[in-house]
């Protein structure tokens, strides 16, 4: 059964170069790009207006932004190697200088933040996984070794118990946050992994990348549950819907796909651009309808809503 998602407008040319990362709160979408500013657009207004531009956030651009569950804290990772913290009050973002200073020298390429905003996990260009406690002056509390290959992506499970990382050599690792050990090893992918994401109830880990398939793992055993094939280009990002019923994926050829977890099949494909979609994220539900946002090399943020009735 296919679903229909209709274009609900876009923030055109939100950035002057590629948008690399999106992060969502209840009412806003934050985007970072090869330009130096972080842009904040409202998702509650029909025309998605720009409500704030945090200029000069990262001089040579920013490749990752993550936000905690209640949307009070954001962490960004810049091309200059700097990790910065931001806090939100009444919809307005300001630099969290204390936490940014605490995180000086923190080494990470890809980053993930825990649901409650207390922990930041990062994977380095050498493939090391670090965890920092943001409520304890950014102290590094974990330091996991992998087999030393570029860490392209990382995720923390919503229940806070697991960290997963994806690497350039196709490896996928899972660590227990409690013990700091790998509970089991995963059969990785053949080609570079570019996205990993835990399902909302932390039961499933999805991983994808240059192999063009999405691999679903049982997060409690490491067993492969399914392979979702259908993309014809490298997969760059993954996002789970609130309920875990749908998985969103975006790829290098500009395609965005929605996958049903019930049928393990693709239920919708969008291709508004032929340029890389670096990031795709589900938006908060409006009533019963779900929607998502996409952004990438075409420099705009596009919004979609499920067609109803």
């Amino acid at each position, binding site marked *: 059964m296919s679903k229909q998602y209709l274009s609900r407008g876009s923030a055109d040319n939100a950035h*002057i*170069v*590629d948008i*690399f990362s999106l992060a969502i709160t209840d009412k806003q979408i934050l985007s970072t790009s*090869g*330009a*130096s500013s972080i842009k904040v657009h409202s998702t509650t207004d029909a025309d998605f207006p720009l409500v704030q531009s945090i200029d000069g956030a990262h*001089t*040579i*651009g920013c*490749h990752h932004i993550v936000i905690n569950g209640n949307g009070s804290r954001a962490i960004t990772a810049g*091309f*200059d*190697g700097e990790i910065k913290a931001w806090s939100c009050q009444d919809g307005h973002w300001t630099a969290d200088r204390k936490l940014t200073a605490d995180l000086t020298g923190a080494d990470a390429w890809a980053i993930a933040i825990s649901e409650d905003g207390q922990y930041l996990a990062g994977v380095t*260009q050498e493939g090391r996984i670090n965890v920092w406690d943001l409520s304890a002056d950014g102290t590094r509390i974990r330091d996991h070794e992998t087999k030393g290959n*570029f860490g*392209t992506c990382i995720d923390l499970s919503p229940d806070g118990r697991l960290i997963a990382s994806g690497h*350039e050599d196709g490896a996928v690792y899972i660590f227990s946050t409690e013990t700091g050990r790998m509970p089991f090893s995963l059969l990785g992918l053949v080609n*570079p992994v570019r996205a990993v994401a835990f399902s909302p109830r932390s039961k499933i880990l999805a991983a994808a990348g240059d192999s063009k398939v999405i691999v679903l793992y049982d997060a409690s055993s490491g067993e492969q549950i399914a392979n979702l094939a259908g993309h014809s*280009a*490298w997969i760059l990002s993954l996002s789970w819907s609130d309920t875990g019923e749908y998985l969103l994926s975006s790829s*290098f*050829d500009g395609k965005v796909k929605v996958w049903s977890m019930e049928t393990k099949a693709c239920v919708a494909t969008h291709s508004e651009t032929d340029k*890389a979609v*670096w990031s795709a994220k589900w938006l908060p539900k409006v009533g019963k309808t779900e929607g998502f946002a996409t952004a990438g*090399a075409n420099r705009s943020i596009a919004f979609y809503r499920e067609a109803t009735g």
Partner: protein
Amino acid sequence: MAEPTIHNLEIVDGRDPSVQGFIDSTLAALIHELSRSPAEANISITLKRRASPIACIINPTTGALEASPRIDTYRKYSWPGKTAHEAWKFTVILRILAILDQAIRTGQLISKRDIYYIDPEFFRMQCIVDRIVDDLAYTIGVNRTALNVEAAAKGLVTGDFRLIRGSHILIDAQSVTEDSLIPRIEDGDEIDISRVRWVLVIEKEAVFHRLARISYHTRALAGEGIMVTGKGYPDFMTRTFLRAMSDSATNQSRPPPRFYALADGDPHGMAIMSTYKYGSAAHLHQNARLSVPRLQWLGLRVSDIIAVPEVLGDTALLSLTMRDRKKIMAMLRNSPVWASDGPEPEWRAELQRMLVLNLKAEIEILYGCQGGLEGWINRRMFRQE
């Protein structure tokens, strides 16, 4: 090809009186100081320092990478100096001044390599000679050729051009079938490229030879063209030649030929392309007369390779090394060419995509694509028309 050590070419004109003046007054001052008592003598040479590459801008008028307006700084080298190193540096400068003095007096052209090989043990490294010659030229306020210092020819060219000096044709490349060394361009020379539709600047010598061997410059879908390579980072002669062609394109009445750059999709390829178009950070004062603002980026982009599935073997794409990543970060951070408000947002985006994907791509990958490298260039030139 063997390179003659000293060229016995008479310099007819272009001798800059300020050069002889500088050398004479510097040497005279030294002799005067030497005649004083050691306690009072101030035996030193002062050179103007070239701008640091970090403090540079893109000049909107010339489209070249230039030093931002600033107060000049000077460095004084004294004899015997505070350290043995300073004493040696002083004698190196003095020695080079003497060599240049002789070259100018006898009207001989000399290359930096020639100077180094006069006494390699004394000069220690080629780059030391290079730097002092450049500093001297900058201090006097002339370009290097005014010191009678000529770079050894490095670049290659093939295609249909004519070099006109005075009223006669010095080179008619139409009658030259093979690729040849780039000719030295003198003030007042004219280049006629009215018979070609494009000029392709190629980063790598091997790629140039591959295209020259199949006479791509006469067989391209886009019509006749000229191919040039500076074999990596281009030297002054290559850039001077390219600029002369670009100026000639500006002056011609018909639609000018297009200028394209073909470089590897890696930080060095991008930096080399930037050197052709905007100039080099090491020689900011030369860039205004050597930059080629009309140069367009033909490739190679990392996305070009990802989008061509049939060439995607295991070896097609390479991971960036840590050095590559550091070089990209330094380019993004330091050069106005890649600045967020700079002239080349696409170049900036490409460097960032490389970092995100951790990938680079070499031109040689295209040998295996449909129609080979030449087929790819045909399609790409057509798309950019």
